[in-house]
């Protein structure tokens, strides 16, 4: 059986499972549609939350980000887990006690104002739509990759699958489907990790392998020291090195933490458990299941990186990096164990070119002077080819001679393994593309695992993308049907009518998300067209914006609503608006309006950033602005009425939490 058939079988079986569950758990009432009837046991809710939370980006891209970013990208590991502490301590139990269905509903009741509720609806929709674009693009490329169809077809299949179970199942269907999706994705992630860890460190647990000894050299050298040595030999920054600015690392981590705690689709998960005490422990269970992937991710990333590097420099395995020549093209084509290189080359996630024609692929990090000189030379050559037939070619040819001289000077300057590149006849790095996503996608093949493991990774990637998209779409549709229609436009709508409205909103949200996934804003579109891969670079700025906005709007307003009795409706509204606008403007200023290239006011470089704060780290600043504005405005306005004060007192104590009321 070939790999494609195997992929189809495993993916098909997983879909059949999801549809079966969704049919069994379909929603019959609004309480079931919005909050699964508050009957989800905490452990199961934790599992569903984990699947909801871990997207295609977590599953496919994160290990690669960590592999190449090393210590600096630990921000994702700490940031995307630390938020659950904030949820358990500061938000989840009180919101569960409140006992309604949506985040804007809490904002509306606590701040005794339909306007506040509508501002929260706007924030929620901006956050969730931003976030869902990344997921839909992820769904499209994941389907495309594994089903061998175009990205557009992939996206349409993905939308149809989500449609089939989310519209009918609501929160109840989505929750139980997510439990199954979690099981699929975690098995798919850990099996290759365990095998690789055994190979490289002799340790069964990847978490221990990360800090274990390097097995091919008898465990004398630690794995991390080996990795650091091999990558620095090739001119890369050491994996464990700290090269980022501390303020930014701090702020990005903080943004990810409070943003996670402020993401509406994560918060509503805690409305589904039976009791307040369950909301606390459910956050713990969610983190247990998330941690199973997140503590393995650095091991997957670092080990895959060492594997790829030593594949291209075979001498590095048992001894020195340069004790044997680089990998030859003849070897790639003749050794069946290296067939994955050609396979992944087809997808564009991996690319190499034998620039100096020696039949070997020399992989190293070009020093900046050489990289710049190489680019200048390529530009000069392109100018000559593009020149009109009757143009004066002499200055163009002179430019090429000059650029060649500059490059040769750089080659004479740069060294690899103690000798200059010029001496060794190397003209540049020949492994020209190594996409982050390779670290997870090609992992089973690199580790020589059987075909069904590869198919499982495919099903796992799809499970991660689908489960997150479904959760987000539910958050969007309940904001429309429950907050906008029932809460403001048609308060007298019947339960049956609202359930229908919820389903129509869900269908509408899926259509919108699909359209945005097919026509993503700005540069995301271009990069997706270029690279077949999930391309972390396309999705991350958009995801980071969603997180930053959640950090600057929803988290502060919820926290103030619970911990302060003095914050007024005027304060809350002003705070949310300031947080939303300040954060969006700061991000767009550097990344372009709606991420359209060329529309940015300032270059996205550390020197141009305000106080050195990167756009990804602005969330906490937006949150501080939100808190400050809300405080000042609240002090200037009349304190909240008595019944609101009593509401706050009542959500602070667990006693008396009942089923949510469909008022």
């Amino acid at each position: 059986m070939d790999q494609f058939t195997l992929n189809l079988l495993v993916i098909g079986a997983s879909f059949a499972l999801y549809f079966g569950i969704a049919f069994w758990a379909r929603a019959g009432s609004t309480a079931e549609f919005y909050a699964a009837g508050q009957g989800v046991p905490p452990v199961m809710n934790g599992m569903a939350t984990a699947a909801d939370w871990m997207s295609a980006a977590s599953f496919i891209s994160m290990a690669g980000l960590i592999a190449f970013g090393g210590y600096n990208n630990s921000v994702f590991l700490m940031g995307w887990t630390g938020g659950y502490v904030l949820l358990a301590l500061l938000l989840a139990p009180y919101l569960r006690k409140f006992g309604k269905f949506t985040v804007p509903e809490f904002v509306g009741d606590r701040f005794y104002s339909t306007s506040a509720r509508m501002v929260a609806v706007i924030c929620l929709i901006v956050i969730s739509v931003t976030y869902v674009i990344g997921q839909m693009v992820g769904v499209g490329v994941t389907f495309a990759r594994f089903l061998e169809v175009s990205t557009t077809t992939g996206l349409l299949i993905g939308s149809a699958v989500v449609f089939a179970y989310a519209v009918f199942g609501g929160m109840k269907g989505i929750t139980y489907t997510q439990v199954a999706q979690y099981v699929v994705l975690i098995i798919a992630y850990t099996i290759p990790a365990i095998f690789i860890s055994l190979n490289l460190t002799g340790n069964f647990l990847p978490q221990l392998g990360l800090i274990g000894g390097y097995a091919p050299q008898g465990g004398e050298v630690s794995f991390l020291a080996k990795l650091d040595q091999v990558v620095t030999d090739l001119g890369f920054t050491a994996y464990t090195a700290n090269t980022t600015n501390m303020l930014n690392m701090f702020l990005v981590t903080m943004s990810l933490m409070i943003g996670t705690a402020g993401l509406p689709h994560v918060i509503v998960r805690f409305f589904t458990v039976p009791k307040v005490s369950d909301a606390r422990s459910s956050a713990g269970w969610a983190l247990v299941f998330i941690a199973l992937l997140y503590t393995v991710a650095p091991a997957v990333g670092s080990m895959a990186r060492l594997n790829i590097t030593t594949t291209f420099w075979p001498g590095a395995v048992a001894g020195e990096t340069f004790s044997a020549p680089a990998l030859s093209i003849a070897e790639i084509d003749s050794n069946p164990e290296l067939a994955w290189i050609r396979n992944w080359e087809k997808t564009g996630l991996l690319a190499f070119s034998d620039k100096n024609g020696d039949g070997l692929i020399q992989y190293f990090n070009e020093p900046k002077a050489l990289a710049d000189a190489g680019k200048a030379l390529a530009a000069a050559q392109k100018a000559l080819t593009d020149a009109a037939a009757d143009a004066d070619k002499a200055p163009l040819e002179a430019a090429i001679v000059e650029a060649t001289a500059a490059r040769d000077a750089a080659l004479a300057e740069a060294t690899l393994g103690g000798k200059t590149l010029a001496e060794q006849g190397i003209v540049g790095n020949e492994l020209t593309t190594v996409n982050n996503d390779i670290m997870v996608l090609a992992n089973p093949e690199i580790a020589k695992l059987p075909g069904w493991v590869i198919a499982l990774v495919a099903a796992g990637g799809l499970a991660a993308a689908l489960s997150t998209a479904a959760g987000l779409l539910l958050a969007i549709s309940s904001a429309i049907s429950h907050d906008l229609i029932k809460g403001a436009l048609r308060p007298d709508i019947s339960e049956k009518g609202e359930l229908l409205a919820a389903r129509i909103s869900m269908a509408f949200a899926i259509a919108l998300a699909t359209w945005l996934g097919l026509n993503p804003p700005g540069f995301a579109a271009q990069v997706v067209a270029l690279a077949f891969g999930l391309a972390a670079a396309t999705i991350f700025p958009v995801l980071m914006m969603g997180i930053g906005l959640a950090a600057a709007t929803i988290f502060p307003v919820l926290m103030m609503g619970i911990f302060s009795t003095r914050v007024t409706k005027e304060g809350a509204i002003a705070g949310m608006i300031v947080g939303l606008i300040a954060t969006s403007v700061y991000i767009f200023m550097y990344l372009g309006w709606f991420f359209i290239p060329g529309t940015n006011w300032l270059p996205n470089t550390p020197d141009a950033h305000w106080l050195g704060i990167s756009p990804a780290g602005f969330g906490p600043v937006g949150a501080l602005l939100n808190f400050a504005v809300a405080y000042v405005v609240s002090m200037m306005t009349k304190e909240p009425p008595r019944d609101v004060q009593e509401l706050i007192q009542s959500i602070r104590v667990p006693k008396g939490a009942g089923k949510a009321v469909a008022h």
Partner: protein
Amino acid sequence: MADKTSSNAYWAANVRIIIISMIVWFACSFGLGILLRPALSGISVGGADLGFWFAQNGAIYVFLVLIFVYARVMNKVDKDHGVEE
């Protein structure tokens, strides 16, 4: 609100526990993982230093323990103040 004083005392106790937990939350991630990493670079953990390990793995374990301890402690505090469900 049957008993205002007891629910105020309950809330004060809760806020105190939250503050202590937040200090632990901050210390294991921002503290050990980021701010104190240079100062603690002498302590090695399997091929790297303590700060590196906390940033990539350790902080997550502390978060886990922290949430379950908080949930347990609060269940007891709920009972002590008679506000459990």
